[in-house]
């Protein structure tokens, strides 16, 4: 008997295929398309091969942006992850204050990104901003629009304010999922709070912390709106992170080819680093 072939199955896959095509494959392929061509306007395109990739990889401008990006990302990770864990540990685990704490923690996450940038811009202005004025009154020579150090300080402070909550919420979720019996068992053993953290809470939080690190890494590596509104990449190029530089090339100079090549390299860097993070953090799990 001949096997009946049923092609109907394709119709079930089709909606997803269309969705993925429109939100991922087609835009990505457009970028790939731009990255290997040269244009002088008029919608005329010429084959350029890997010229743009070579140019980007050898450009000191890209190297500088990448270094700034890495510095920014690793600084905020080094602050936000431990700080988030400390705050999560300090939060009450039951009682009427739990919802209050959770809502307070979620608030920064609810604010639109450009609002966060604008808020901090005004907040930090040295003449009229509360933070900037206060610092100057206290005798610090603070001006984030002119001094590189101050610009970085404000940028990092803003990101910590905005995103530590996410780490707190994830770490808190990990903490409350630990059964009471673990704490009792540790108490019976006579463990102090440091060993409870080291041997029970930290190992039990490992998975959510891995997710927290990955999310914060990817988000901070992609960050655009907040620093753009806050400093616009300045003073000079001192806070021009990768995404800001990319937009400058693509829309400021309208160099579509190099911008597309840079986007792909940018994408691959994130992919590679995410993979490295994940592998390192999950290494023990597989042993």
């Amino acid at each position, binding site marked *: 008997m001949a096997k009946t072939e049923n092609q109907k199955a394709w119709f079930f896959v089709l909606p997803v295929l269309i969705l993925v095509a429109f939100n991922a494959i087609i835009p990505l392929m457009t970028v790939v398309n731009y990255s290997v061509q040269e244009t002088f306007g008029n919608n005329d395109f010429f084959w350029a091969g890997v010229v743009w990739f070579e140019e980007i990889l050898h450009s000191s401008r890209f190297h500088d942006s990448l270094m700034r990006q890495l510095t920014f990302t690793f600084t905020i990770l080094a602050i936000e992850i431990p700080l988030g864990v400390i705050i999560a540990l300090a939060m009450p685990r039951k009682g009427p204050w739990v919802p209050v704490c959770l809502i307070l923690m979620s608030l920064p996450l609810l604010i639109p990104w450009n609002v966060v940038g604008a808020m901090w811009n005004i907040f930090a202005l040295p003449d009229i901003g509360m933070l900037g004025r206060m610092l100057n009154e206290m005798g610090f020579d603070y001006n984030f629009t002119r001094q590189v150090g101050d610009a970085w300080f404000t940028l990092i402070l803003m990101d910590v304010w905005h995103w530590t909550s996410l780490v707190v919420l994830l770490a808190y979720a990990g903490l409350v999922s630990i059964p009471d019996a673990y704490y009792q068992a540790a108490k019976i053993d006579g463990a102090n709070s440091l060993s409870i953290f080291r*041997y029970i809470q930290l190992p039990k939080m490992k998975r959510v912390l891995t997710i927290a690190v990955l999310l914060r890494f990817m988000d901070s590596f992609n960050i655009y709106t907040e620093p753009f509104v806050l400093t616009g990449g300045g003073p000079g190029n001192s806070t021009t992170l990768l995404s800001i530089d990319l937009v400058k090339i693509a829309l400021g100079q309208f160099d579509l080819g190099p911008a597309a090549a840079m986007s792909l390299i940018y994408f691959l860097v994130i992919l590679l680093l995410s993979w490295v993070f994940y592998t390192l953090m999950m290494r023990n799990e597989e042993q």
Partner: protein
Amino acid sequence: MSLELKGVSKQVDGETHIYPTDLKLETGSFNMLLGTTGSGKTTLMQIMAGLEPVSSGQIFFNGADVTGVPVQKRNVSMVYQQFINYPNFTVFENIASPLRVAKVPEAEIKRRVDEMAELMKLGPMLQRRPSELSGGQQQRTAMARALVKDSSLVLLDEPLANLDFKLREELRDELPKLIAKRNCVVVYATTEPIEALLFAGHTATLHQGRVTQFGPTSDIYRTPKDLISAKVFSEPPINTAKVVKEGNVIKLGSDIKWEAKGNLSNMKDGQYTFGIRPHHVTAQELGEQAIKVEGSVQITEISGSESVVHFNMHGNSWVSQSHGVQYHDVGSVAHLFADVSQGLYFDDKDQLVSL
């Protein structure tokens, strides 16, 4: 050694979790806490351990008042229903952890952990982490950790509840042997009457925060003080029905009656609650005073070695437990025999009538 609770009670937010309780637990046998989920077994254990403060009353260990003494200073071990181990320690380090805290010399640790692992059949697993073990092995690790130090009080809070049937049987056999040589007070909480009977020793039946009865297990099983203790200590649940005694006849409804023999004839005339355990209601005519009972069948459960039939007995839901395979169609009338000589009689306050 002995652990004594005197008038111990526990209130949380105005709600009573444990009503004033007096208990005296001794070394040498299992002290079972038997009760349904939520009856207060775990709370009582936490009070015994010193993990929870008492609202009133005192706790004595070997005659010394330990009421306010923190758990670390009481030399207590506890095993939980969940498998509690240090997640990133190996099995060896897990078992060794209480000894490390107690600063036992390294060679001694090695010797005692190996010995314990041998007993618990964990020898080949010593270098693994808890996440790489089966549930039974994880729980054995937790037990090994509880038993490796010479605690004076060992608390086992439904340790076998989360294990599969076979492992549970295995550990039920092993546990008494592991405890036997120890000079410590052992408290074991369970929801299953069969476990209480298996470990013998002493049993306290718990119901809604009250210890309803305490004594040697077999005594409690045979002569429950009241209806609640009888219900707690019976699985399937004990069958009950209202009966009336008139002269030397006991009547259940209008059609079932039997002779009040022996001491029963001294019982005052009047209404009583009659209780009979399911294994005394059988398909075969067994016992000294088997009388016929019948009722429409609601459910049957046949395990091969025994058949359990739920049937309607004058408006009461009764359970019969017989040997072998006995088929009964649902809705049909089952003809069974109740050995009323094994029955228990409770008065209008649900207290056992002493005969």
